[in-house]
């Protein structure tokens, strides 16, 4: 039963979401609602924007995982505990900075383009992953850790076999939050020539074409749901 649900989770739901996306593309390309929107709503262009968007999200999220996870582990070590508390508070405050501001700041220092957009997204998605990694590891019961230590497990094994597996649900929660936020924030990348579905949305706002706004918004929503679903599947698989 569990096996079957897993297989269904990897196939049916993603296929359904892909079908939703495909239908959205088809619908808006066939009904662009005027010549202006039709200039953007052509198949090669929409696919290019989706590719750019996925790329922005995937690259920035992978980089964020690659940095925030080790960092979160580091600050959860007993000798950095005070640092951990500091980081936790800083992160909570930093999270209130609007994503557009992060993007604007990144632009000021790094100029325009895909790399800057990735950098800004990376900055912004570091925080939830870092916080959840720290919180997840700290949530492991002290008696479990003491049992592990008392039995002679090395610190590395305690981390790898006890702390990380037990913290996985919380860490994955952070990663999923980060990725979903990233899909939304990536629509802002268009302001600094980062491409992505934001091209459709922002152009749509500029020239008042609802079709453009809807196409961009629906596609990024579908993308967010798809990525979130895949991550939850991965969590069930590896967790």
């Amino acid at each position: 039963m569990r096996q079957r649900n897993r297989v269904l989770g990897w196939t049916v739901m993603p296929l359904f979401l892909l079908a939703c996306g495909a239908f959205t593309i088809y619908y808006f390309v066939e009904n662009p609602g005027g010549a202006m929107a039709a200039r953007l709503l052509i198949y090669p262009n929409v696919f290019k924007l989706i590719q750019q968007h996925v790329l922005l999200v995937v690259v920035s999220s992978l980089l964020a995982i690659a940095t925030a996870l080790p960092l979160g582990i580091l600050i959860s070590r007993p000798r950095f505990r005070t640092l951990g508390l500091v980081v936790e508070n800083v992160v909570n405050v930093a999270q209130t900075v609007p994503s557009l501001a992060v993007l604007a700041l990144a632009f000021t220092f790094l100029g325009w383009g895909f790399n800057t957009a990735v950098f800004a997204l990376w900055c912004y998605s570091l925080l939830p992953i870092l916080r959840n990694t720290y919180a997840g590891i700290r949530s492991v019961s002290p008696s479990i850790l003491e049992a592990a230590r008392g039995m002679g497990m090395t610190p590395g094994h305690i981390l790898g076999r006890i702390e990380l597996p037990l913290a996985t649900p919380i860490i994955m929660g952070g990663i999923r939050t980060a990725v979903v936020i990233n899909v939304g924030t990536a629509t802002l990348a268009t302001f600094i020539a980062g491409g992505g579905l934001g091209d459709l949305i922002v152009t749509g706002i500029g020239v008042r074409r609802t079709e453009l706004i809807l196409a961009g918004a629906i596609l990024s929503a579908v993308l967010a749901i798809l990525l979130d679903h895949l991550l939850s599947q991965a969590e069930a698989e590896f967790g």
Partner: protein
Amino acid sequence: MRKYHWLAIALVVALTLALVGCGGGAADEEWVFATDHEFSVRPDGLPDLQNVYGFQFDDVITMDLGVTYGALKEGQVPAAMGFATDGRIKAFGLVNLVDDKQFFPVYNPAPVVRAEVLGEYPEIEEILGAIGPRLDTDTMIELNGLVDIEGQDHKQVAKDWLLSQNLIDPEAPEGTKGPIKVGSKEFTEQLILGAMSVFALENAGFTVVDQTGLQGTEVARSALEEGEIDTYWEYTGTAWLVALGHEEPITDSEEAFQKVSAEDLEKNELVWLDYAQFDNTYTIMMRQADAEAKGITSISDLARVINER
């Protein structure tokens, strides 16, 4: 089981690297054009521009309007769009290409005065009408640049320029006439133009009520129509399309001025004084050195160079 997991992870990483590889390709193409979102789709924007001049950019990158100047300056694109009198054009070493086929609608600004006020003080026509003809595109770019890039006060910039043109005296006389209420919209160029009106009128012995910095065309225009202000600088193209509600843009400066001033006088009792030489419309820009090296001065040149590759 474990082996299969590692395989899955390897697959994700490989796919990502492949995606990154594909994504990086776009910037290598030769004629990439940086544009803001609106210009990329509007009928008086990029699509018809390419039709009229008969060429095609290799690729188009969309970004915020403010970003196009920097992208061009840094050399990541060879051509970009902007607004013709933006201060960055000079500061960044960029050059406007001549719209030799008069594709873009014209947006020459001119002081618009209520006919009632002009009836009372006919000398205003000469006072304000003297400013416009001396303002060409390069001058306006420079004045905008002094405020936007070098951070000078717009009033100071306006005053300095009027003084340099001998349009005002260093010390204004005591105001005995008026009062005249001067308005403007809220962006740099408008603030400078508004300040010029204020100083020129004060120099002629008017008491001036400074109402500059109004939020947008709608507010400024209705303030003028209802007599809350007596004059402000409006662009011919904007008045034609927005205030007078026409659909088809006009692409010749003189024609636009004639049509707008005639209609506004008749319908709204507003008088358009002599218009400025500069035209704050969309522009296609290149880096100056690059344009010179390639012998490009107009959009037709650009089209030719792109097509002859």
